[in-house]
């Protein structure tokens, strides 16, 4: 692809209520994943692999974790003179209701698009963990008739919640609308086109949409504008067939992490033709002590393991002291398990300390979530329903 032919927008304003307390101080985009990544690494890596150098990030309310992770954007080749990462500050809905402020925000977006000089713009969120080949999407878009392409994956109906968005596919294979599952008349269909919050759109058309919205009587956010555009134009519907995990709630997030322990999923997501790039850390090697026992587990660097770990995801700088055990759990960075601690079916957020001989145990359906920097001295046990 020509340099500059594509630009990208990553919208980090995703509904994260179902992921509390993990999303108290961070958006979905900076949730840790697989002991090594943040969710935003997946759209950024897809963007980087497609030689896109200009990216706008619509920042969430809690922007600091995003800034800390992105820095100059060099990790994803977003620090070239011909491009860059442009962070658009979080905008409260009340400010959008002021017509002049609203016009200014839209003008900022339009200016980004104009300055990028791109012919097409990719729009992605962070809550669909996937490795999308954007060059393939572009080829599909060019071959299609519509100025907008929506990305979906065919999934069993049973895997979607009622509010999750789907595409209504026409017989021609185009998408005529983006609707929540609950609004669809599916009859006895077993499968559905799950919308992946991803678009590729002609840049001039996107500028037109924003321009119209800027002059509109009331406020409409970008996702609404895009759904309207699908309705108005029908969209080319690009079917993605690779690994997908949708982080729509705690249970899904938990399952997505543990899915990486399945070798096929691990290879499909992390060793595809799209390398997953993430901010590098200067960590020391992970050390396994004489009596450690670790199986069926992925780990980041800088960890120090004396105890036993089974079927778990361990981030960097985790300490597991002797006689402690971790089973079926997701442990984030800097967490410490004291001597004799036991953790099962749990998610421990960053910096958690589990006291000596304390047990934290959830169930596969209801993992216990211990929030960031909490110190746990008393056992927490979720009784299986």
């Amino acid at each position: 692809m020509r340099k500059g032919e594509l630009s990208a927008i990553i919208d980090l304003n995703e509904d994260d209520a179902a992921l509390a307390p993990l999303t108290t101080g961070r958006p979905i985009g900076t949730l840790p994943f697989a002991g090594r990544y943040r969710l935003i690494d997946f759209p950024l890596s897809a963007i980087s692999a497609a030689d896109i150098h200009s990216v706008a990030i619509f920042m969430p309310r809690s922007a600091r974790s995003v800034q800390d992770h992105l820095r100059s954007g060099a990790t994803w080749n977003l620090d070239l003179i011909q491009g860059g990462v442009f962070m658009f500050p979080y905008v409260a809905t009340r400010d959008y209701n002021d017509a002049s402020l609203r016009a200014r925000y839209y003008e900022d977006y339009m200016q980004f698009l104009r300055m990028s000089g791109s012919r097409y713009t990719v729009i992605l969120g962070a809550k669909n963990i996937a490795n999308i080949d954007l060059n393939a999407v572009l080829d599909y878009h060019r071959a299609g008739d519509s100025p907008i392409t929506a990305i979906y994956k065919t999934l069993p109906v049973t895997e979607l919640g009622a509010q999750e968005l789907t595409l209504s596919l026409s017989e021609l294979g185009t998408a005529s609308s983006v609707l929540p599952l609950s609004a669809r008349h599916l009859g006895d269909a077993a499968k559905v086109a799950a919308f992946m919050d991803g678009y590729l759109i002609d840049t001039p058309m996107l500028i037109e949409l924003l321009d119209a919205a800027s002059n509109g009587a009331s406020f409409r956010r970008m996702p609404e504008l895009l759904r309207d555009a699908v309705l108005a134009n029908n969209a080319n519907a690009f079917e993605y067939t690779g690994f997908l995990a949708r982080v729509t709630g705690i249970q899904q997030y938990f399952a997505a992490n543990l899915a990486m322990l399945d070798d096929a999923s691990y290879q499909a997501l992390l060793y595809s033709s799209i390398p997953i790039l993430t901010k590098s850390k200067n960590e020391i090697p992970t050390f396994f002590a004489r009596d450690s026992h670790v199986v069926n587990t992925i780990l980041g660097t800088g960890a120090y393991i004396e105890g036993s770990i089974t079927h778990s995801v361990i981030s960097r700088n985790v300490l597991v002291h002797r006689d402690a055990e971790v089973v079926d759990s997701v442990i984030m960075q800097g967490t410490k398990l004291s001597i004799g601690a036991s953790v099962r079916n749990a998610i421990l957020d960053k910096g958690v300390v589990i006291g000596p001989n304390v047990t934290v145990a959830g169930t596969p359906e209801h993992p216990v979530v211990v929030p960031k920097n909490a110190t746990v001295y008393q056992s927490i046990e979720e009784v299986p329903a």
Partner: protein
Amino acid sequence: MTTEMLGMILAGGQGTRLGKLTRTTAKPSVPFGGRYRIIDFTLSNLSNSGVNTVGVITQYQPLELNRHVQNGASWGLNERSAGVTILQPYAASDGEKFFEGTAHAIFQNMAYIDSYNPKYLLVLSGDHIYKMDYRRMLAFHESKKAALTVAVMPVSKSEASRFGIMNTDDTDRIIEFEEKPAAPKSNNASMGIYIFNWATLRKYLADSNATDGNLEDFGHDVIPAYLAHNEPTYAYAFHGYWKDVGTIQSLWEANMEFLSPNNPLNITNRNWRIYSQAEALPPMMLTSTAKVTRAMIVDGSYVAGTVDHSILSQSVKIGPGSVVTDSMVMPNAVIGKNVRIDHAIIGEDAIVGDNGEVVGTADDIAVVGYGEAIGRKEKA
């Protein structure tokens, strides 16, 4: 532009004593300790000491070293008008400039050094494993009003005859230098770390070049010349972990020492980090058949076998049924099924096919070279 102290790393040696490990790469870029390369220690020391301008003199197989060092950003050595510069041989109107010795290499790069107009020149080797604050050595150098300060460390009397030994008076002034003496008078071994007043050294090197060109090597020629001319030359005593990893045996030992939780290098200390270029690799995976004890492992590795008292670097694969003990495995090596590796160093990109054996002893470390394939895969 003026830089108070300019660092120069002598990274040109072929490292022939590392045999197969340096056939296609320079010694300073040999992997160490799982996620490092040897030169990381020197570069990190410089960065942590606030020496932000560094020339790396190299001439032997520099491609991998170049790729590793890049613009120095991994060590925070990428300031504008400063940072790391790789210095290779070049041609000038008066001829081609290969480097004949340590001092000669500095002389050949005089234009580079002069462009920073440094007051002090810190000359270092790129193949030592240690942590050192060069600011303290500079403070010593300044307080002694020295023309040259040589860092020394105490070695046992039995070892002393393998080193350059500095005999000092009670003000730490060097009064005699003995290279590999049969009967050493002291145990102050030179660490190959020098702080020179650049103006003085520059004059010595230029005079030598204009006359007989006899100042080729720092240890062999320059220090004796300084002593002969009564230049104030001092020994700065260093106390801490220091290891020259110039042989297979010492490289293996240093890795095994690094593996010890009580390693005096104290690699976990966040106040003096050892930086390295970090690739974005997937997390390490230990499968259901893995058995890992007394080991260090890093990103991208995949372990289905047994690993005891060993270091695995980035993206190493250990197949099921394989047993790796007392060994160091370099990046991207692939160990098949039911392989036995013991007291060995496995080079980058090496392949040990199924049922292979690479077995050495504590005194005779087995080595598989870079990209070498042994065992079943060799036939392919």
